[in-house]
C-alpha cells in the first residue's frame, strides 16, 4: 500500500517532466531548415615541410594522407536549403556542387559532384555526422594535389 502511494506520488513529477519535454521533443522532431556547407580547399605537396597553422584542427586527419606540406588555399561557406545545390569554385577550373538530401539520426546525406569545367570527375552520395567532415582529394594542382574538406551543419 505504501509502495502504491509512493508510485502515485511519483507520477506527478514524471508527468510534469514529460509536459516540459514535449515541446523540446517536438522542436527536435521538426528538424533543421537549411544546411551550412563549408569547403576548405587545401593544397598538399612534397615541396616543403610547411604546415599551415590554420589547419591545426585538422592535422590528425590530414596526417592520414602522407604529404609533407599542407596549405589552406581558401575557405568557402554557403547555406543551402534541402534538395538545393550549393556551388563552389575550386582552383584549376574545377567546381563542386553539394546538395543536402536528407537528415536522419543526426546524420546528413549529401550529394557531391566534382567537375573539371563541364566534365564530371566524381559523383558521390555521402552520409556524415552533423558538423562532421570528410576529405575529397586527388585532383592535381600547382605541383601538388588538392584536398577538399567538406563539412555540413544543420541550421
Amino acid at each position, binding site marked *: 500500500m505504501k509502495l502504491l502511494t509512493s508510485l502515485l506520488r*511519483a507520477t506527478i513529477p*514524471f508527468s510534469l517532466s514529460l509536459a516540459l*519535454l514535449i515541446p523540446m521533443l517536438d522542436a527536435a522532431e521538426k528538424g533543421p531548415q537549411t544546411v551550412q556547407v563549408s569547403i576548405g580547399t587545401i593544397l598538399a605537396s*612534397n615541396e616543403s615541410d610547411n604546415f599551415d597553422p590554420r589547419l591545426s584542427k585538422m592535422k590528425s586527419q590530414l596526417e592520414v594522407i602522407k604529404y609533407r606540406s599542407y596549405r589552406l588555399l581558401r575557405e568557402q561557406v554557403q547555406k543551402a536549403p534541402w534538395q538545393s545545390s550549393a556551388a563552389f569554385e575550386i582552383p584549376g577550373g574545377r567546381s563542386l556542387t553539394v546538395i543536402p538530401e536528407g537528415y536522419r539520426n*543526426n546524420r546528413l546525406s549529401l550529394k557531391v559532384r566534382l567537375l573539371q569545367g563541364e566534365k564530371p*570527375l*566524381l559523383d558521390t552520395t555521402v*552520409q*556524415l555526422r552533423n558538423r562532421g567532415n570528410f576529405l575529397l582529394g586527388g585532383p592535381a594542382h600547382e605541383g*601538388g594535389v588538392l584536398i577538399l574538406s567538406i563539412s555540413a551543419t544543420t541550421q
Partner: protein
Amino acid sequence: MKMHCEEVQRSLEAWLDRELNQSEAERVGSHLLECPLCSEDRRQLEHLQDALRNSLEVRASGLAFEPFWSEVRRRILEQKPWHVQFLDWVRFTLYPARLTWAIPVVIVFLLLILSLEQLVPGWGLGPGTSNLAAVESIDGHGLNVAVFRESKTKTTVIWIFQNQEGEDEAADESAPGDNTF
C-alpha cells in the same frame, strides 16, 4: 480542592516516582498526612519498591557490565569493510520508496539524452555522433577512385587517381609516387 482517597490511590505510584507536577504532588502529600488509610497504602508500596530495588541490586552486582559496554564502543568505532559499506548503500538506495522516484528520473534522463543531440548538435553523446562518413554511392566517371576510412582519427577520404596530361603529370612527379595515404 481536597482529594478523595480513590484519586490519591490512583496517583500514589506516580507520586512515589516523582512523576506528578508540583501542585498535584502537594495535594497528594497533604492528603497522605491527613488520611491514615492512604498513608498505610503508601507505606506498603514503599516497602514493596524497596524490596524490589534490593533484589535487583543484588542480581545486578553479579553481572559484568564492562565487557558489554566495551563491545558497544567497539562496534560504534568499528570501520566497516568496503563491501559491507557498499551493501549498506545498495540497501539504502534500492529502498522501494526511493526506487519509485528513480524510475521516472531514469526515463526522463534517457529521453533527454536522445533528444539533446537534436537540440544541441555536436554535444558529443547520443546516436550518430561518429565523424566517420558513410559513402552510399560513388561514380568516378572512368577515373580510379578509392575510399579510405581511418578509424583512429575518424576520417573518411575519397581519393581520385587522375592521370591526365599537363598539370596532372607535373603533380604525379612531385606527389608521392602512388598518391598513397
